[in-house]
């Protein structure tokens, strides 16, 4: 046990003096959370853009009441519209134009439907939310005026409303925001892989490359303890990377106004512990896989290229999980990587995975780790690995 620790401390000292491994650690910890933060703020600003609306109006002198009402609504600004509204929209000079006809004043005075035109391009994705905002504003004006007219005639306006329809025009942004949330488990697992990588490859393939494996193996220490020490060092780095990522993610989530995007932020202390318990098994397994693979490489660089390919393993299911959420599929839990994605998604969504799922995931990870480490120990005894350079 003591010797395992000696090996681990040496690999840490060696590993953390390597600028490359420090940079990968930092980049892996910052990249994911910052990307999520960027995507969230993009959506938030789009939505804000839809709420703050500038309405180009042609013929504003025809409907002072409507214009007045519009300018009183929050986030609404009325400006003069272009001379040729349809051409302006077609050429994308304006997103949309509100046209008020001459007979508006007369019909409005007579309590007949007063005509207004909304000129827009329905095929344009980016303006759709603004147009629907304008439509709901116009509907609002219409029903408010109608209500007042009924009241003037002694009828309660409530009578004409058979339905009370609430329009929530942010539905699509809410979905997109929730989708971004699903990236978090992937970035957590990927940070485990990237942070553990330098030590996992340097302590195996690197030792072969330098020729330092041969004298090292001459020390009176059982091979399995040597492998265990190196694995422990890589695992420590991987855990550190994941904790950093988790910390940055949580700080970022607490700063973003998630509620405005229609997402409830569930992460408290309890969830934090659950998150760690759900991802920790991968911290055991990821460095073990990396070490095993690196044993076959003759140099640090060769190992890095193998491990780069290995990163595909957590990335592809991670991206898939963003579009096809993995919740409510308990049979996924014991499968490494997929199980972690499923559990982290559930925890962030405010649900605790069943204890049996957590135990199952931990057990498979422990068994696979032990298997890979014993295989790596065998490789460390092979003459081809020790002397093959």
């Amino acid at each position, binding site marked *: 046990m003591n010797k395992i620790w000696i090996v681990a401390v*040496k690999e840490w000292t*060696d590993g953390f003096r390597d600028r490359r491994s420090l940079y990968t650690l930092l980049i892996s910890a910052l990249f994911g959370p910052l990307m999520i933060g960027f995507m969230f703020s993009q959506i938030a600003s789009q939505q804000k853009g839809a709420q703050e609306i500038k309405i180009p109006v042609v013929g504003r002198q025809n409907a002072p009441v409507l214009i007045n009402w519009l300018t009183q609504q929050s986030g609404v600004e009325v400006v003069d519209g272009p001379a040729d509204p349809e051409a302006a929209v077609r050429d994308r000079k304006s997103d949309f134009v509100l046209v008020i006809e001459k007979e508006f004043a007369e019909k409005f005075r007579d309590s007949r439907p007063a005509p207004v035109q909304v000129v827009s391009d329905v095929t344009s994705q980016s303006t759709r939310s603004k147009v629907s905002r304008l439509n709901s504003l116009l509907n609002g004006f219409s029903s408010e005026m109608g209500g007042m007219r009924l009241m003037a005639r002694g009828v309660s306006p409530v009578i004409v409303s058979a339905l009370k329809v609430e329009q929530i025009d942010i539905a699509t942004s809410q979905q997109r925001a929730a989708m971004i949330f699903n990236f978090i488990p992937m970035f957590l697992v990927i940070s485990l892989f990237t942070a553990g990588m330098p030590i996992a490859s340097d302590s195996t393939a690197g030792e072969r490359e*330098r020729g*330092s494996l041969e*004298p090292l193996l*001459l*020390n*009176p220490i059982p091979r399995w303890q040597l492998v265990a020490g190196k694995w422990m060092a890589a695992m420590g780095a991987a855990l550190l990377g994941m904790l950093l990522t988790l910390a940055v993610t949580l700080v970022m989530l607490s700063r973003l106004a998630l509620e405005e995007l229609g997402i409830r932020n569930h992460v408290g202390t309890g969830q934090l512990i659950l998150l760690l318990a759900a991802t920790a098994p991968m911290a055991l397994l990821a460095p073990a896989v990396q070490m095993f693979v690196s044993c076959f490489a003759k140099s640090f660089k060769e190992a890095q290229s193998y491990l780069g390919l290995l990163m595909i393993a957590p990335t592809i299911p991670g991206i898939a999980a963003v579009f096809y959420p993995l919740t409510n599929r308990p049979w996924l839990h014991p499968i490494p990587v997929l199980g972690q994605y499923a559990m982290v998604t559930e925890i962030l969504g405010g649900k605790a995975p069943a204890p049996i799922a957590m135990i199952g995931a931990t057990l498979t990870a422990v068994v696979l780790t032990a298997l890979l480490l014993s295989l790596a120990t065998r490789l460390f005894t092979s003459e081809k690995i020790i002397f093959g350079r």
Partner: protein
Amino acid sequence: MIHAKNLNKQFGDFVAVDNVSFSAPDGAVTGLLGPNGAGKTTSLRMIYGLMKPGGGSVEIDGIDMVARPLEAQKRIGVLPDLSGLYPRLTAREHIVYYGQLQGIEKAELNRRIAHWIEILDLSGIIDRRVAGFSHGERTKVALARAIVHNPQNILLDEPTNGLDVMSTRAVRELIRHLRAEGRCVVFSSHVMQEVSALCDRIVVMGRGKVVSEGTPEELLALTGMTSLEDAFVSLVGPHGEAA
């Protein structure tokens, strides 16, 4: 005390070591002399237990290397053909790492490091990182690291290969120092001068076989030559093929 008996090693069809036997006594320097590719390194690897012999046996102070490798390896110190240092660690950290793996107590370890700093003249570089070291400095660090546990038997694979004059002298002095302490030193070389300058006994190898064995004087008498170099050429043949 090292006994190698009937060692064999084959890589595919190629016989690298063919029935090699020799003994290296305590308090003496035994040289493994032979041209490149004669099987010196492979023999040493089997003796220090990282390569499994195809046949034959190795005993270190009476302990069988194949049956009890950890015990036998505790009694040897090895400088393999590559020094194999970690560029980001200091010279001291290298020695401390191996000392800890050998299970040496901290106070004792510090005492020994002080000892090696003096003998190998490491004081100027002991706390510097190895990355910028010269070949001679690297060899010294690797040597100190290899024998930090005071092993009775010391195996050196081409220790002076590529060293400058000053470093070569330092290594030679160390070898004499170890012999004076009554240790068993085995070193391999393809350089005549190294062997003649240091060795009490010479094992001449060629094409995986032991061609001849004895003191320098015995080898001269055997071949009827006046210089060791001529004796060597007559034993292994002008092109390195064993006679």
